[in-house]
């Protein structure tokens, strides 16, 4: 399987930004500062379990569900 990480990251950004482009950008910045660069993942990225666990933890920190 592939693409789950990008889907989860997109979901985090959407839930947090609620359509606001400024908050979308700052949410992406926060992700990079947490060590998760959204630009490194696309729909073909493998579903690495370690990264998925990390994304879930970050989502929990940000108060959103993925």
């Amino acid at each position, binding site marked *: 399987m592939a693409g789950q990480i990008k889907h989860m990251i997109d979901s985090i950004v959407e839930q*947090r930004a609620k359509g606001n482009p*400024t*908050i979308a*950008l*700052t*949410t*992406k*910045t*926060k992700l*990079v*500062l*947490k*060590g998760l*660069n959204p630009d490194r993942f696309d729909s073909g990225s493998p579903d690495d379990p370690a990264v998925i666990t990390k994304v879930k933890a970050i989502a929990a*920190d*940000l*108060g959103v569900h993925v």
Partner: protein
Amino acid sequence: MPVRTAYSTKELGDAVSDLKKQCGAPQPRVVIYFGSPKYDPRELSRQMKQCFPEACVAGCSSAGEIASGNMMSGSVVAMFLDEDIVEDAACAVVGNLSAEISMADAFATLGRHFQAPLASLDHEKYVGLVLVDGLSGAEERLMEKLGDATDIFFVGGSAGDDLKFQSTPVSENGKTYSNAAVLVLLRVKRGFEIVKTQSFRTTGKTLVATKVEEAHRQVIEFNHRPALDAYAAALGITAEEAPARFFHNPLGLMIAGEPFVRSPQRAEAGTIFFYCQIKEAMELDVLEATDIVADTRQAIAERQAVNGSGNGAGSIRGLIDFQCILRTLQLRDEHRCEQYGSIFRDIPMIGFSTYGEEYLGHVNQTSTILLFR
């Protein structure tokens, strides 16, 4: 009406009176101040609150102060925000930063004041200032907690002490704290902008942190090589030559084309110690320095143009500049403090030389500026 600012180089008791005299009437809603470590921070804080009892008063120690065109040492600078700029304001303290950081008490204090949870406040109307004990080493964790809990922007700096590295307290409403941060939440009347400017461009070379000691801001390996060797190789120099380049060639976490600068502090047995954390697997660009004065001048000019005036300060009513001490040291070395100060000569402003700047995270070698319209 522009923001009122003041500075004094007098001794403690006279300095606070001097600031109050320059402030004039009416009483401000918020007082932000930055004081040289020559002043007893507890006494300075107590006297500032005594002088402005109705205001939300916050400040910290500094490693150099700035007030409208003057870069100084041994002074105290202050900004007085009245209802024309700030409709409402509240302060809170986040204590015990060396332990697990909890925002609960501070957010409850601010939420009670504004009668709404912070997460529900409009990020276009509210903005926060954050002043952190500059020796806490906790800025990354603090900013991450803040950013997790709210989309409101908090901008600020890490307190300094003229490079003594002994004591860098923060103050809130007459009290002084170490191992703590002060938050000031403002509901701004007309608007604000945050400007993060740094004078670097990428060399196009990258380093990936492959072994780190995050909590101690150490990178042990880049690209699976001893960090210092990999850094030196990227610059085409020897490991022995590398520390001399730290200042002009820091690393940048590139986000939307803009670097979040991570400045190397020193090297030890092949490991590089930084002024802020680098996480494992982070890819960083090797940067090279450009011109601080020219870049900052351009950044401010762009803001003046956005605000619809090419004449003087335009509609910038005031700004607070959190300027990295490394930039200040460079300006001092190059005898360019006056040139830098001249950028702000027509703008009511204060600032201080920090041990790091805060904007979304902890950054180095920037001027991070909160600008009031």
